[in-house]
């Protein structure tokens, strides 16, 4: 069982501090939602957890090991990361993009193993994109493209999945589909940490909600503990009449 421990993380870009003393712990099977206004430090926290940015203070540990101390490929096998910017430079085929999730396992000058092939097939099934095989990513709708990128992340079979706003710019149905896929991968034993703006979906799908503002963690816990009326007013500048309720939308076939 994997365990993620972030404690007292501070980070800066070019000397400008963007994260102060952020702490968070999550175990296998959990979905953690990072919520907060733009610029709150959610992406920076994800980068630190992914070993892509070295914290200036504090520790990011996966199963007790410092994430920045892991070797590149070893880290890449255990931690999958989906950036907010999902632009693709070339007009790749869908299955080729998903196969990139297996890049950390590829041996130089060798073909993909049957294990790699199986991981790609099952990731494409989980994200429901098998019918898109052979299509070029730049010909897809944004909803389809979001699921292709998600399948790429799932194909790695990582212990820790970090998602930076995976449902931004998606229609309600696609938002639900992505959240269902995320929930299912946590059920299979992954730790999922995702930045998300849709509070009602965070309330519904996350086991643990972390409210961030100006680089600090303002509150965390279950959705009801974290997202209090005062905090919503203070951090987001919004009031929710009757309190924040989980999204009641459901998929119909």
């Amino acid at each position: 069982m994997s365990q993620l421990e972030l404690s007292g993380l501070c980070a800066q870009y070019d000397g400008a501090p963007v994260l102060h003393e952020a702490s968070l712990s999550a175990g296998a099977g959990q979905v953690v939602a990072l919520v907060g206004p733009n610029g709150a430090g959610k992406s920076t926290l994800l980068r630190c957890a992914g070993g892509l940015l070295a914290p200036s203070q504090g520790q990011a540990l996966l199963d007790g090991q410092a994430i920045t101390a892991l070797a590149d490929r070893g880290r890449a096998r255990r931690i999958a990361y989906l950036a907010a910017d999902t632009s693709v430079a070339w007009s790749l085929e869908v299955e080729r993009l998903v196969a990139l999730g297996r890049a950390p396992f590829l041996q130089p000058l060798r073909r993909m193993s049957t294990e790699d092939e199986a991981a790609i097939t099952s990731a494409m099934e989980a994200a429901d994109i098998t019918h898109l095989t052979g299509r070029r990513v730049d010909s897809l709708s944004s909803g389809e493209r979001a699921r292709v990128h998600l399948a790429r992340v799932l194909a790695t079979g990582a212990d820790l999945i970090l998602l930076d706003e995976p449902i931004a710019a998606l229609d309600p149905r696609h938002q639900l589909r992505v959240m269902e896929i995320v929930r299912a991968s946590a059920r299979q034993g992954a730790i999922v940490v995702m930045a998300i703006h849709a509070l009602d979906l965070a309330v519904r799908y996350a086991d643990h909600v972390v409210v961030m503002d100006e680089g600090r963690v303002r509150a965390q816990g279950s959705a009801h503990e974290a997202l209090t009326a005062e905090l919503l007013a203070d951090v987001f500048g919004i009031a929710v009449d009757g309190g924040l309720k989980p999204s009641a939308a459901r998929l119909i076939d």
Partner: protein
Amino acid sequence: MKSRHLIALVGLVILAVLANLLVSRDGLLLGAFGDLLRGEESLGTRILAELRFPRAILGALVGAGLGASGAALQGFFRNPLADPGIVGVSASSGLGAVIALYFGLAGISLLMIPMAATLGGLVGVGFLLLLAGRRASSTTLILSGVAVSAVASSMTALLMNLSPNPWALAEIAYWLMGSLADANWNEVRFAAPLILAGTTLLVLVRNDLDPLSLGEETARSLGVNLPWLRLAIVLGSALAVGGGVAVAGAIGFIGLVVPHLLRPFVASRPAALLLPSALGGAALLSLADVGTRLLSGPGIPLYLGVLTALLGAPFFVWLVRSTQGRAP
């Protein structure tokens, strides 16, 4: 790439190299080729053995280096407009050769020019890495490449400005136009190891180019060691292109055109494009060299670099217009 496409490409390379070996303005050198196979000696066989063979081999090698480094740089910069010229290798290799020509080092040994050109390419790359820093983004690296090119070109222009007599100036100008007409076995022995080493380095790191399609940060998250990849791409290109510039002068656009033409056959995968681009570069440069011989007038040689630029520049314009706003 499907195997029938690969076989067709290899066939094209063989045909192009044979054409470069045998086609001349007065027809085919088939008689001499027959003599050579029978072991008889004639003027024709000496032309083949001492001029045409090294020329055909160099043409294929220089083209392969340009094609491979074009594919590698386009994949690395995620930009179909990237080209060996862009990182400043061509210009700084050119400067090295011009320094050798200016100071008359060619009089010491004919190999001084290729040596100075290769050294120039490596110094240019050194400056590039200093300028761009170890963790430079692609944009920084492109801008640094433009800066290195600008410095090298201005120094080259200065040396041409200062050249003591019209003959020295003409020598530099002709060299810069690029040609394989004076190819010989010494140049093959000098350039082949450099070009092969550079191309091999690029081929070895090509798998990291696919994850890079998703951006530098995502590539890092997929285990790509970016500083190492950057070094390998730049050094591999310096050797693969610098070795070619060293013996053939500046030959542009091969590295731009070839990857673009072959991209549809590899479903746009940057890693899969590398080897085919080396083959395609070999074929295209060989054919262009045949073209220079057929199009040259008596006493007025058409230079290889001029021909590739004449064909490549309109292509570049078309490419700029057609790639705006969509993924290639």
